[in-house]
């Protein structure tokens, strides 16, 4: 690791101020991506501003049809939360399947969403559930938030405070995890809400998480595995790497979507 200065922020405003003044400073939440990145010398920040313990970024709350989770909430706490399990069980289940236990004990919701790793699980939930990303400056709709691989609408120094998930009627998430890392080779989150049905795909898109429009249209007429089985996902915009070709991943997306649809139709 290159040398940097570590500082534990005492408040969200202090953290935002430090980050605004120093463009090479970086916020540190759980550090499950940032620390490995630093260890490989792929980044050289001047300062790390630790925001993980800030009370403003904590809390899980469900009221008026919206589940709100603080950005610094750890995956293990989302998974174990009775509030989340009751409100959106698919989200608790997703959190329980991220990485491994040690990663879930450190990694945070806000960190994962801000990083927008193309194979991370949370972006699929945020996009499918049509969540709002509440930052230190504004509220950003999920459709506007994710802007490509590792790219989001966040401006320098802007921090995610919490994420507000409108409660769906039903939701399901299925992923094919990479056997070593647990990252999604393909992950599909389907959420059915009063104002429509959304299908978000992670792990596969060449530009990160995306909505699969054809699947949304097919399922809008009735949720069934058969509705997905008729579809073909074009492989053109699918990611290809040593773990799988784009055609293989496109097929995995379809299989995961079929499973998620089956889980959802079984629940109804």
């Amino acid at each position: 690791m290159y040398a940097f200065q570590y500082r534990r922020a005492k408040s969200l405003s202090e953290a935002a101020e430090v980050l605004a003044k120093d463009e090479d400073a970086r916020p540190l939440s759980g550090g499950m991506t940032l620390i490995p990145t630093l260890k490989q010398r792929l980044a050289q920040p001047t300062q790390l501003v630790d925001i993980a313990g800030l009370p403003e970024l904590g809390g899980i709350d469900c009221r008026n049809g919206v589940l709100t989770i603080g950005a610094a909430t750890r995956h293990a706490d989302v998974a174990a939360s009775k509030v989340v399990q009751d409100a959106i069980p698919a989200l608790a289940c997703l959190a329980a399947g991220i990485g491994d236990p040690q990663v879930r004990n450190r990694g945070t919701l806000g960190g994962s969403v801000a990083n927008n790793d193309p194979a991370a699980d949370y972006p699929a939930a945020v996009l499918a559930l049509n969540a709002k990303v509440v930052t230190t400056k504004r509220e950003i709709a999920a459709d506007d938030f994710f802007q490509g691989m590792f790219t989001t609408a966040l401006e320098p120094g802007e921090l995610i405070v919490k994420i507000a998930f409108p409660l769906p009627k039903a939701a399901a998430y299925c992923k094919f995890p990479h056997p070593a890392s647990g990252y999604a080779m393909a992950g599909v989150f389907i959420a059915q809400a009063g104002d429509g049905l959304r299908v978000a795909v992670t792990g596969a898109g060449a530009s990160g998480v995306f909505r699969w429009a054809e699947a949304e249209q097919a399922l809008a007429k009735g949720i069934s595995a058969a509705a997905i089985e008729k579809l073909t996902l074009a492989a053109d915009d699918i990611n290809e790497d040593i773990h799988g070709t784009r055609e293989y991943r496109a097929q995995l997306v379809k299989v995961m979507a079929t499973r998620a649809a089956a889980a959802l139709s079984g629940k109804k």
Partner: protein
Amino acid sequence: MAKITLKVNGEQHSAEAEDRTLLANFLRDELKLTGTHIGCDTSQCGACTVHVDGRAVKSCTMLAAQAEGCEVVTIEGLAKNGKLHPAQAAFTECHALQCGFCTPGMIMTTAALIKEHPAPTDEQIVHGLEGNLCRCTGYLNIVKAVKRAAELQKAK
């Protein structure tokens, strides 16, 4: 450099360390607690697993500064009054190791696992050990040991 103060295995410790010092290195180099092993140094293998405020974490993927004010338990702190922790006793009894390099991390993860799941199923064990790798592939006995550790914990 900054002074880092934290509680390790019940004792308060303070030491100077660079801000970029990892908790694993701090424990090993400053506090001379070399039971915590660094295996892969890339957050994969879990040999460096310790408990921070009661939770299993990979100490190679956490800065010592992040643990300021926290309670850390390492493999050296598991046995109490000369009596092995159920996880340690079970790993010995089931011979859940070959070379033993991954064992401190396996045991720390097991100790956390049986606290969360006092009677773990095979699936919970396999899922719970996903963050720990054994290059000797001694997993069969490791899974047995986790079950045995849960039994020993219950009998305590």
